[in-house]
């Protein structure tokens, strides 16, 4: 079977003849004829050194912003057609961070998949893991059996992660618009959250903490208290960050009325998350289709009706406060109990602990499988090497990530590996709105618009 059985006729494409080195000022720049006229490629240097188009020819200047540009949020390439400082056409080029995560997951066990998905949108690892695990649990039909404590821990970790993600959105967004103090504050406060992640899972990012059936391990001794102690500090410092920008006239000058996208535009372009809520629609999956017991928590869905960058900024600021509210309620709901399903055919057998040689299986578990119970050893071996099987069928599970609806479409053929996993990453879909938000605006507003979308290229390209 051929893998590429469609060929396009080349008739539609312009007949291009490249002639780089001879005619251009250097080896990388040159000019060539197209059906639409002569095209000059320019890199580096001064505008003065660029030869002007011959008289009577129409000038179109296409500028590549990125993929390596400090204010394009990672390896995002913006292709801007400009007329002076005005953007007449904007296109986003993606794929520079494509790592084949979906394909790779088809060659690992269901549990190993967690370590891949956590690396997609690397600022929201807990959401990636939870979306994937909710989908696996749905396919296994064990959603009801996930212990209460595991679900509450998931909620705590997700809401803390939402704060961390929004802080990076504010920090990088602030930096891109010249508010460097906001950047320093944002990254500093984010460390408070990452410290909690490190203490609970062993890793600041990419923690692979949420597992099918529960979480990898219980909160460590003193973990609950540490989270309780961090909340007031976070609350105080979040206010400092907000105070820096909320009524800041320079900040407002750069963001109010910029990057406009109304509700109809959001619906057509499939936009979710803070961008959708900035149009005034209170749509939040945590309220609309609750998962992980979100119906038990009291919190508000933040909306603004400005449909602009400033509105999205305010939404992120206020959502962080709501997340702290949820974490406080979740801590109160935390009751002792197991953090993994009962079913020994699915539950990861070992708890982790820190030994002299780093993190590994707990000594009690090793004592049990190596010295006491041969059946436990067999079980451990089978689960770790072969893994469990998931019944055939397909499911879709979605969570409200800080960027919007993060969906996981999962197909199982009854094997020990996923047959197909696809992630509907909110950044991927939301990034399509760059053109609608920035065409007709200034180049500097493109930066503000992209910052308000808060795309993370790891999630966009997967």
């Amino acid at each position, binding site marked *: 079977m051929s893998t590429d059985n*469609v060929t396009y006729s080349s008739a539609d494409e312009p007949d291009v003849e490249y002639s780089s080195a001879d005619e251009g000022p250097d080896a990388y720049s040159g000019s060539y004829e197209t059906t639409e006229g002569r095209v000059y490629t320019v890199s580096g240097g001064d505008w003065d050194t660029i030869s002007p188009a011959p008289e009577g020819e129409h000038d179109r200047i296409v500028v590549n912003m990125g993929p390596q540009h400090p204010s394009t949020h990672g390896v995002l390439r913006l292709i801007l057609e400009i007329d002076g400082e005005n953007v007449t056409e904007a296109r986003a080029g993606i*794929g520079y961070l494509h790592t084949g995560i979906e*394909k790779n997951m088809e060659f690992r066990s269901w549990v190993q998949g967690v370590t891949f998905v956590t690396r997609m949108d690397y600022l929201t690892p807990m959401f990636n893991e939870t979306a994937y695990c909710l989908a696996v649990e749905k396919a296994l039909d064990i959603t009801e059996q996930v212990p209460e404590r595991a679900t509450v821990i998931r909620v705590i970790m997700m809401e803390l992660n939402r704060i961390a993600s929004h802080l990076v959105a504010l920090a990088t967004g602030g930096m891109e618009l010249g508010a460097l103090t906001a950047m320093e504050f944002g990254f500093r406060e984010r460390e408070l959250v990452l410290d909690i992640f490190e203490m609970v899972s062993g890793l600041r990012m990419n923690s692979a903490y949420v597992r099918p059936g529960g979480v990898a391990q219980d909160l460590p001794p003193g973990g609950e208290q540490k989270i309780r102690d961090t909340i007031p500090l976070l609350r105080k410092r979040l206010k400092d960050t907000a105070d820096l920008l909320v009524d800041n006239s320079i900040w407002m000058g750069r963001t109010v009325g910029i990057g406009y996208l109304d509700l109809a535009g959001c619906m057509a372009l499939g936009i979710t998350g803070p961008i959708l809520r900035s149009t005034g629609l209170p749509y939040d999956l945590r309220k609309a289709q609750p998962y992980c017991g979100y119906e038990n928590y009291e919190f508000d869905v933040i909306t603004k009706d400005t449909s602009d960058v400033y509105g999205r900024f305010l939404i992120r600021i206020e959502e962080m406060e709501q997340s702290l509210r949820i974490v406080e309620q979740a801590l109160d709901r935390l009751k002792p109990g197991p953090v993994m399903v009962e079913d020994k055919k699915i539950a990861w057998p070992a708890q982790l602990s820190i030994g002299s040689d780093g993190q590994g299986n707990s000594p009690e578990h090793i004592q049990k499988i190596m010295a006491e119970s041969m059946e436990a050893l067999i079980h451990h071996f089978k689960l770790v090497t*072969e893994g469990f099987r998931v019944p*055939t*069928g*397909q499911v879709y599970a979605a969570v409200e990530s800080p960027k919007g609806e993060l969906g996981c479409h999962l197909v199982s053929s009854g*094997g020990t*590996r996923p047959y197909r996993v696809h992630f509907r990453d909110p950044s991927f879909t939301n990034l399509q709105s760059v053109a609608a938000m920035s065409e007709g605006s200034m180049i500097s507003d493109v930066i503000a618009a992209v910052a308000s979308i808060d795309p993370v290229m790891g999630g966009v390209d997967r």
Partner: protein
Amino acid sequence: MTDAPVPAVPEGVHELDIIGVRHGAFGASGSGDTSGFGGLVEPIVMPAPATRPFGGWFDEVSDEIELSLEARNLPATGVIEKVVIHRGEITYHVRREHLVAFATALRDEPGLRFELCLGVDGVHYPDEEGRELHAVYHFLSITHNNRVRVEVSVPDGDPVIPSLVALFPTLDWHERETWDMFGIVFEGHPALTRILMPDDWPGHPQRKDYPLGGIPVEFKGATTPPPDQRRSYN
């Protein structure tokens, strides 16, 4: 192992639901396995089609869909191949020639109002003859707070599906990704080009016949083969 007899279609199983055959249980052959499990041959059967009544809101939505299709002079049986309900989710398998009408009904009918399309992705079933490539759409109704899934199957030799970009502009990048990864051609898409892979990339990487690639990892005194050549326990 591959020359083992293909089992007959089990009683009560629709032929459309069989996506392949599983041989053995350990992903290894020629190992002198005496347990008998290595000789297992069984069809891989997807969840069976549902019959009325579906239960819950599924019936209301299905009624609305059938009514609106009839209003467009399309009998529902000719449009919908089968309806599958699995784990509380409903999937409509739709024939590709009627996909646009079906999606228009989903979006526009007041009783349906699936105004948000969450994208399309491909699934490759190389053993399903004549239906190798599936495109799976997810729709969300904010108005009624429902979700439905729509699945379209096309043969590998003619992988063409009408584009829905005109109805749901959000599908622009999603259809490009599905073309890029699976080679499904969305007819009518304004610019169906690769999106994640480089423009001159040969092949469609997420198809099952496309190798994962990789190199063996060497440890002291041992080598681990690349992931797609390791034992798989299928």
